[in-house]
């Protein structure tokens, strides 16, 4: 079995004439938790968005298992559909659906994107919320949640469609020390279940404690790849 879950080869992205990604190349193996680190504005979030198919790029290749996004040819709808069965993403600002309850945020995609029965999806959502410690907020609206609760609901929503590769953008940014420790445990647990995680973060302690590798990013490219002990 191929160990490689994700591969980026010479990905270049220009935005309004400015080079945002300057030939990014790296691999991520199954069940790894890889941290993308670097100061703000170097292209970490853009890398995640490119992998998720949210942003087109000019050249290079993004490969998620057998699915290939080719910068030169754009992203056909069928490729994107297949990609989204493989890749989940937790945004820095969560982007929970503001008009829906926490529970519906979590069961919406399993029902309407994967065709799961609503009852089954609701039960599964409740299990996920319980595992993340926010089942008591199941009927709250997103604007009623704290930052930590919203973060965990966003993770539950992403996990509800069971993606083998999960992208997280600054997951610890809005959390205090206790919440950060809880999240560390949670994400480590996900890798033990066989899920692959790519996390863009500033948080050195998080990277040190959780990541199997750290990719250092500068001016739109990865300049260092360090395996952690």
């Amino acid at each position: 079995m191929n160990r490689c879950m994700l591969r980026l080869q010479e990905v270049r992205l220009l935005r309004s004439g400015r080079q945002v990604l300057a030939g990014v190349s790296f691999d991520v193996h199954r069940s790894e938790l890889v941290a993308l680190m670097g100061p703000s504005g170097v292209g970490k979030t853009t890398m995640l968005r490119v992998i998720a198919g949210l942003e087109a790029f000019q050249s290079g290749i993004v490969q998620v298992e057998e699915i290939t996004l080719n910068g030169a040819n754009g992203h056909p709808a069928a490729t994107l559909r297949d990609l989204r069965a493989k890749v989940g993403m937790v945004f820095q600002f969560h982007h929970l659906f503001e008009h829906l309850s926490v529970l519906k945020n979590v069961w919406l995609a399993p029902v309407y994107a994967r065709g799961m029965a609503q009852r089954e999806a609701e039960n599964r959502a409740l299990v996920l919320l319980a595992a993340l410690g926010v089942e008591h907020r199941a009927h709250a609206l997103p604007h009623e949640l704290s930052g930590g609760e919203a973060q965990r609901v966003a993770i539950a929503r992403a996990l509800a469609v069971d993606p083998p590769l999960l992208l997280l953008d600054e997951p610890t940014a809005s959390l205090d020390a206790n919440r950060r420790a809880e999240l560390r445990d949670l994400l480590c647990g996900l890798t033990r279940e066989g899920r692959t995680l790519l996390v863009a973060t500033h948080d050195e302690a998080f990277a040190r404690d959780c990541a199997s590798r750290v990719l250092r990013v500068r001016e739109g490219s990865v300049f260092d790849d360090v395996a952690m002990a």
Partner: protein
Amino acid sequence: MAILFFQCCCRSPTAESIFPFILSRSRFLRSVCLAAAVFFQPINFVAAQSVGEFRWAGDPEGGAPFVEADPAQPNRLIGFDVEIAELIARKLNREPRFINITFSSIDQSIERGDAEIGLSGAEDTPARRAAMAPTIPYYEFREVLSVRIADRERYRTLSDLKGKRVGTLGGTIAYEILLNAEREFGVHPVSYDDDVHPYSDLVIGRIDAVLLDNVLAERRARALSGFAIQPRSVAVGHYVGILAARNSALRDQINDILRAAMRDGTLERIFRKWRVWNDDQPRLYARLLSAQPVPAVTGFEAAPMALTAWTAILRYLPSLLQASVVTIVLSCLAMALAIILGISIATGRVYGNRVMRMLLTGYVEVMRGTPILLQLFVLYYGIADLIRLPAFGAALLGLGLNYAAYESEIYRGALQAVPVGQLEAARILGLSESRVMTLVRGPLALRFALAPMTNDFIALLKDSSLVSVLTVFELTKQTQIFATNIGSWVMPGLLCAALYLAMSLPLATLARRLEQRWRFSTV
């Protein structure tokens, strides 16, 4: 002069043949004229200071043969009322000055001093005799029934028209007669704003008969075939000049002038010139000159003379409430249509290809860039030869299609205001674009659109008054008739405003509550 010029340009025979639906005695022109009249009000005021002028009021909109623009020289007025006004002015050694007043507002305008006398085929009624200072009658007319030629034998009198639609001008004696016939024989009165469309609607079968003055009926019969005037008259009435009660001295002077004109044949010459002289007039003049009393109306018991405020409310409230139901039902249905079409247009403009976007943008610009009244006229009268829409259907379609253009812009803006993050979150979860629209973008956009939608619904509720030009009898039209009949806008206006508020305030409250309930922060 500018007002007159505008009116006259629009009423040239060539233009009328091209746009018959626009150029009738309609509220469209009336609204434009009113606006112009307001603009020129200071000029009228200056004129009022000039003692050498005799200000007389009339409505030239479809006012033939009373007051109309001369087709040969559109900046000049012609008609028998014009000649009578000139005669009176000459005898008073004053210069006649025409003041353009809408037909239904003549009493109120005279009362407030816009002009000294109203002359525009104004009817003599007991209410006018009680509240104003009308002149002696100068012309006797007959209320006559017109029917399609094929129905000539079937519909001879109002009692033959049970369950049938009979058209007339609102706020006239004929309308009162029809209301009476509704109670007595089960006739359905249909009120028009002009005296042209009742006859064209009769010919194409939208209504079954028309009850109007013989002067109007005979004039239409000369221009339009397909209907016949029944010989038996339903009632007899008279045209008078209307002055304010405080002007009774001037009224007496004018009465003397009219009597002299009856004696020396001046009035006969005027009416003969306009082809409306008949045997009724010498009989009327003989009675007037021998000081015999002439009842305002014969053959019909007209409305009581002066109503107290309370009696007026009791009398008109049921019909106002009935008209409110028409207003609210029409507004709700039109808004529902506007919302459905508006959402479709907005979705097409956001998601559609270039051709679709161009077509939909064109629709929006045409509907927003042309007057809603014009659209209503086109739907009801303009395309009547192709599709004969019922009045309510045309009104519903007209309002719905027009408001759909405005609604679509609200929804387009709201769809574009939904944060991109929400859409990306939905897409990354694997939801298809149509699911993103129905489950996330649409519901979020609805929250942005709610306040302007409520605004639009309240605006539509008020704009629904425009459909009275298509004979749909809604609240404002009923109020207008109420006001015309009692000669004052105070009580009808207050009642009408209260009913509109009763309809719009709960809606605004509901919208505010929904907005509060749906309030959230979006990132």
